């Protein structure tokens, strides 16, 4: 005797409900309930919430909640093949980029790759302090035998940040030019940024095999691309209207206006977005080691799984160190650009 029986009786739906009812196997709870028929169930609420499960007990025609979750799963599985044929070729270059960069970072001797990276830090930051700090950090990571994994992590970040910029800046530009596009993109970006990082992995695991590097590549890019899109859009919208008017008054075409005025003036904001994108890909690359991303995250994971406290903490410290050098270097580059544009 379910609470909502009366409702369906009153609505005259009883016949409809009982059509081909109870063919499904009884659950344990149903069985117990059936046994102590009419006895008062001590757990029964006086006025239960009319949830799907509760209504189902009164009317077999109403589906249970678990039917929905399986429904989603089934439809996802059904669509999987189709999605794969579309997504696989598009995303294949990502695997290629990740694997080849990883290969380069792993196989280049340390006495070549480390000076190259330090030189790169100098090139973008033009700051002695930052460059010295970067060099010191690499030496320290090398001394505690973490250089190899740190370079793996770094290679993934480089590729994912690069692709985020490549895709994010044009998207941001398009958003800044169309209010409609901006309105429709903002909720998507909000979603990407608020979705718990683990949740990204769920549909991706369905789509791609865990052994493919694009699986974690996509997860990282989806998460990290948001700031560079947002800040490109914002930066271009904030460009001084008077200067834009001057560009028009002197007869610039749309593309001249973009390359000579809008992008240079938006550059400080775009760089701020790139800085955030780098930091977010670092955060995600650790989680992505759950789905076979190599690097420091793997050691952190080992620390958690095997309760190897020391391993986990040292790797964690290595991540902090990477975060600091990436942040300092990109911030130094940003302030250089900022100064150049304000002079």
């Amino acid at each position: 005797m379910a609470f909502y029986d009366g409702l369906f009786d009153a609505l005259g739906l009883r016949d409809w409900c009982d059509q081909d009812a109870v063919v499904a196997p009884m659950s344990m709870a149903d069985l117990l309930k059936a046994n102590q028929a009419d006895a008062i169930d001590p757990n029964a609420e006086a006025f239960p919430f009319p949830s799907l499960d509760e209504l189902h007990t009164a009317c077999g025609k109403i589906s249970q909640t678990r039917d929905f979750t399986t429904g989603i799963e089934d439809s996802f599985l059904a669509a999987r093949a189709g999605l794969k044929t579309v997504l696989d070729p598009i995303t294949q270059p990502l695997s290629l980029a990740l694997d080849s960069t990883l290969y380069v970072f792993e196989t280049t001797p340390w006495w070549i790759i480390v000076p190259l990276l330090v030189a790169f830090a100098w090139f973008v930051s033009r700051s002695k302090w930052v460059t010295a700090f970067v060099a010191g950090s690499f030496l320290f990571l090398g001394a505690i035998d973490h250089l190899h994994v740190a370079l793996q992590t770094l290679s993934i970040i480089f590729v994912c940040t690069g692709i985020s910029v490549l895709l994010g800046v044009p998207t941001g530009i398009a958003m800044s030019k169309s209010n409609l596009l901006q309105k429709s993109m903002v909720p998507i970006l909000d979603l990407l940024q608020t979705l718990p990082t683990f949740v990204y992995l769920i549909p991706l695991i369905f789509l791609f095999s865990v052994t493919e590097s694009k699986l974690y590549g996509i997860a990282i890019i989806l998460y990290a691309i948001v700031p560079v899109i947002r800040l490109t859009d914002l930066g271009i919208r904030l460009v001084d209207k008077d200067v834009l008017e001057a560009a028009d008054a002197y007869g610039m075409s749309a593309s001249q206006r973009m390359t000579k005025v809008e992008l240079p003036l938006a550059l400080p904001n775009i760089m701020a977005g790139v800085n955030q994108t780098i930091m977010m890909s670092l955060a995600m690359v650790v989680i992505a080691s759950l789905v076979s991303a190599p690097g420091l995250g793997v050691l952190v994971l080992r620390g958690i799984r095997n309760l190897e406290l020391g391993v986990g903490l040292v790797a964690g410290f290595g991540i902090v160190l990477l975060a600091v050098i990436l942040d300092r270097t990109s911030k130094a580059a940003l302030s250089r650009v900022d100064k150049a544009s304000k002079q």
Partner: protein
Amino acid sequence: MTTTPKVSLRGLYKIFGPRDKEMMQHVAAGMGKPELLEMHRHVLGLQNINVDMQAGEITVVMGLSGSGKSTLIRHLNRLIEPTAGEILLDGVDVTALSPADLRKMRQEKMSMVFQKFALLPHRTVLQNAAMALEVQNVDTATREAEAMKWLHRVGLKGYENRFPSQLSGGMQQRVGIARALTSNSDIMLMDEAFSALDPLIRTDMQNLLLELQKELQKTIVFITHDLDEALKIADHLVILKDGAVVQQGEPQGILLNPADPYIEDFVSDINRARVLRVKSVMTPLHDPSMLDKLKGKTFAGDVAILENLESLIARSEGDTSLHYRVMDGDTPVGELHMRDLVKALVPRVSSTA
């Protein structure tokens, strides 16, 4: 004058709002700016503007803030699209140009100087001045040589490699003017170009403009809300109010015969003695036969036709009984009695202003 004007605006209307074309019928039926805003949520920016701008002259458009000056000047290069009417440049209707032709017209025929300078902050003074030619894909050496020439001309020698933010407002506006001159266009649009500057710097810039104009004879459209400035530089003065022209003509004529209480108000605070010239208040000789008439008279002295009244008052030491002969070079062209001069100094105020 019978020469065709360089730029001419014919029956120009601008209504701001999404359904501006539909609103034209209300405006044509005589609806004013406040009613249109109240009843239809559209702003009447300009109404029935008819102005001819002659080649080689400075046309000044003056009006209070919000009177539509910026809107008017932005129609000339179509930064703002008109709702109705024609904009003729050398007889060609600018409103009919294709986007590509419009860009070409902006590149080659018109330059613009802005109130807030609108320089590119990430570029040097030299690169800024060369921008107009860069847009036209002129090679770097040529355009920088041209920009350098004009930067020197406006007094910025030695500042070529600075950035705009390292310069004072007056100097930034000199860069703005150099940029406009580098484009080598016939027409120069200046929207309150000197309004953001300190009074002394402003006077310098006005003098610079007049000096350049003597040399270059551009067609200049100059916007200002300052009557002193307008009177100083205008060849042709257009006064705007609520988007309509209330009076236009030769500035001294407007000063002496304001058509409207609004303009009387405007001109009442002016130092007339300094602005008015002998030419505007003298009794002219209409034909040479009257020359003999002058000969018979005795004059206190000769004055030049372009002298202002202030200097003549100083010369006469305030004696209103004197009588002067007016000379244009060596030819006598009229006479001026000091009593008429004093009368001209009193602003005409109609009714109960």
